[in-house]
């Protein structure tokens, strides 16, 4: 049987982590201003960018 690829599983795990992080109720936690930017705006883009960076790291790694 073909072994499930670890890269694919890691990416899917990122997706499963991302879903609760980017939806309510967690999304209602950031309030007010962070470093001069509305907290929610900052939070959304930061989490999103983090997911992308992790995905890039997982997908582009040379070793399997």
């Amino acid at each position, binding site marked *: 049987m073909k072994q499930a690829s670890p890269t694919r599983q890691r990416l899917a795990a990122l997706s499963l982590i991302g879903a609760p992080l980017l939806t309510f109720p967690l999304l209602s936690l950031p309030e007010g201003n962070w470093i*001069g930017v509305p907290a*929610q705006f900052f939070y959304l883009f930061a989490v*999103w960018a983090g997911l992308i960076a992790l995905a890039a790291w997982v997908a582009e790694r040379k070793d399997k």
Partner: protein
Amino acid sequence: MLSGWFILFLSTVYMAILFAVARFGDARADAGKSIISANVYALSLAVYCTSWTFYGSVGRATSGGLSFLTIYIGPTLMLLMTGVILKMIRISKVNRITSIADFIASRYGKSQLLAGLVTIIAVIGVVPYIALQLKAVSASLEALLHESGSDFLPWWLDSTFLIAALLAVFTILFGTRHLDATERHEGMVAAIAFESVVKLLAFLAVGVFVTYSMFDGLGELFQRAAASPELARLLQTDASRAGTWTAMILLSGLAIIFLPRQFQIIVVENVDESHLKRAVWLFPLYLLLINIFVLPIALGGLLHFQGQPFNPDTFVLTLPLARGAEMLALLVFIGGLSAATGMVIVETIALSTMVCNDLVMPWLLRYSRIGERKDLSRLLIVIRRAAITLILLLGYVYFRAAGEAYALVGIGLISFAAVAQFAPAMFGGMYWKQGNHAGAVAGLLGGFSVWLYTLLLPSFARSGWIGNGFVENGLFGIAGLKAQALFGLGGLDEISHCLWWSLLVNLGLYIAVSLTTRPDALEAGQAERFVDVFRHSGRETDTRLWRGRASMEELLNLLERFLGKARTHKQLGAYARKRGTTSWQKLPIDAGLVHFAEAQLAGAIGSASARVMVASVTQEEDIGLEEVLDILDEATQVRAYSRNLEAKSRELEAATTELRAVNERLRELDKMKDDFISTVTHELRTPLTSIRALSEMLHEDPRMELSDRKRFLGIIVSETVRLTRLINQILDMAKLESGRAEWTTSEVDVREVIRESMDSLEQLFREKGVMLTGELPETCPLVMADRDRLTQVMINLLSNAVKFVPGETGKVHVRLSADTERVRIVVGDNGPGLTADECNVIFEKFRQGGNTMTDKPQGTGLGLPISRQIVEYFGGNLWVESEPGAGANFIFTVPLPGPEEQQ
């Protein structure tokens, strides 16, 4: 300065550049040097960002705050599910699938009914989306011209219609230039990737302009917005929108793979599965970048145009224009044009393929004699061109009928909800073998009807095109049938409401009907092929699922009509080589060949039509469902068995290797034992022979002189002593090696051991006239060892030394030193020394210094091996440092006990 003609000119130049890029891409593809790299693939996915993103997001942000982001978060999360997307790509490659309609139809038994149904849903569903592009381009043009006050169109010509017509011509020229309708459109993909770059740069440019030129950066913009209660509302999305937020993410996540153009780009145009690895992060990164400035622009527009009439959908244009930045406005216009044309091109090409393959061709093949024409590839192109025109026309009609009542994003979401209806049939088809044709039809019809009733028709009603009684009061006045509060389900926005009901009905019907009906034989086979696509490496099962008769001539004829002669012969040649035949004329007419022909045809006219066509020229035997299930079952079992077998054989191999190693070791030991015995016997025989010879001489010659007798007896005695010593040492060695030796470990002062050994051998040294000196430190730490054994080592080394040094001038020197870890004893002499080879050899059993062949042996050859064993038992080392002619230093160390052992 911005005249209509200048704008038209600029647009034409831009289109010409696009053509050049596409032409270049096609030329490279024809030359076999594809320019579609992982990066180009990832960028081409950004065809997802249409006018909606470019103009509509800002508009959405002015009313919904951050909620515009959901449309881009959904795709990010969906794309991370690489396994799902990879499976779609693999299935499509294996089955030569060219559209989403083809995918669903092929899975559920190559059904023409399903292919048609999916096509109709896709066309109707996507029409509002195309209308959105028309509306956006028209609005942007209006904004640009309104500002400059020029009006270049005659009053009787509707600018939106003109745009639709131009886009149709452009798409036709662009996407269906080839007569060959089955290839990928590599040129188009390259052009789309190029457009993606243009629209991103344009949007970033306007974003930076608004944020940093019109305002003092993000901080100031947000501060001013927060000061106004109306705008502050946009900065924080409260939890009451949680349902809508999640629904939008789900909706956009489905849209990214099920929109016909996304399916086309992600699946059909994929040249290499590994490109997905790049797309999985590069495309989300693109989405993130293009969205960073959306909220700032929206806030900037609201702040700037306070108290004036404005259209938030065109803020990206009107803001630069308000500051007189006309060149930037033009760049933005080109960016918006990019977004719209990219979407329209890919969407209409994908839809026209579906309309042609899954709607028109089956109908033509069934009801006209067109199937008998010689070359049909020309006709395919004509149908596709007509379909493109028709789709754009429908888009225009929808724009006229309902476009005015909605903002851009509102229109787009209607389309998203329509394509979401494909989800149950698609996912079910990929992962659930029991899902069948009847279930898919029921689910799609149910979901689509709900969508029509709760979303599309109300959009017409809103613009007053049809009566809105069914929205306000419910159909036939029944309150439970209110279109946007079905069965009293209120409190949701219209999109979430539609998504919830339509997916519930769709999924419910799909599952319920699938579980209560039985698939036919063909479906069961296809289900297996789709769900287990990664395990289906061999095509054995495929070929067993077809029985019948066919003729090469008829198959060839069929292929030539749809693919053209040259292409047919090329493909057949390649297939023959794969089967190991020299030319395709010699191919056996079997199930494999028929499958190949059908797959080739499916690439051109869709799997449903291909099946009908192939069936028309072959005599296929009907295989019952039971038999198909048996064959599939058998195949599954065989796979399971072979897996077990593989595992077993691997285990067996490992065990064999282990056994072999053990056997090897045993042989070695056996050989060592033999060697040992033969050496021992040899060593014992030498003294025995000499004793026997001398004894015989004494026995036979009674008149021998006394002095001779004495000498002989002396030799006999010394040989006996040697023999005894040899036997003792052999016993000692055997004990040491077998681990049965007795050790009495206690604290030992090495100095005492050395002194005693030197004393006991003093006589021997004096007899030979050899000088023995010692160099012992004042104090020396105690070691843990067996005192007698250490003495044995010392005596052995000293007696070796005295044996090899020359008489009278010989010198032997013993030196003891100690550091924190060990004591070190050196026994040095000024004898003949040893060669490097000898340094190693002397520690082997029965090997002695000097030439044993010529010289009389001076020892037993066991002293050093025994000494080494003893020293190593205490954890030390014994070695020799020497050079020929320079004497030898025998060195051994004994470790000191660790600190915890000392206590």
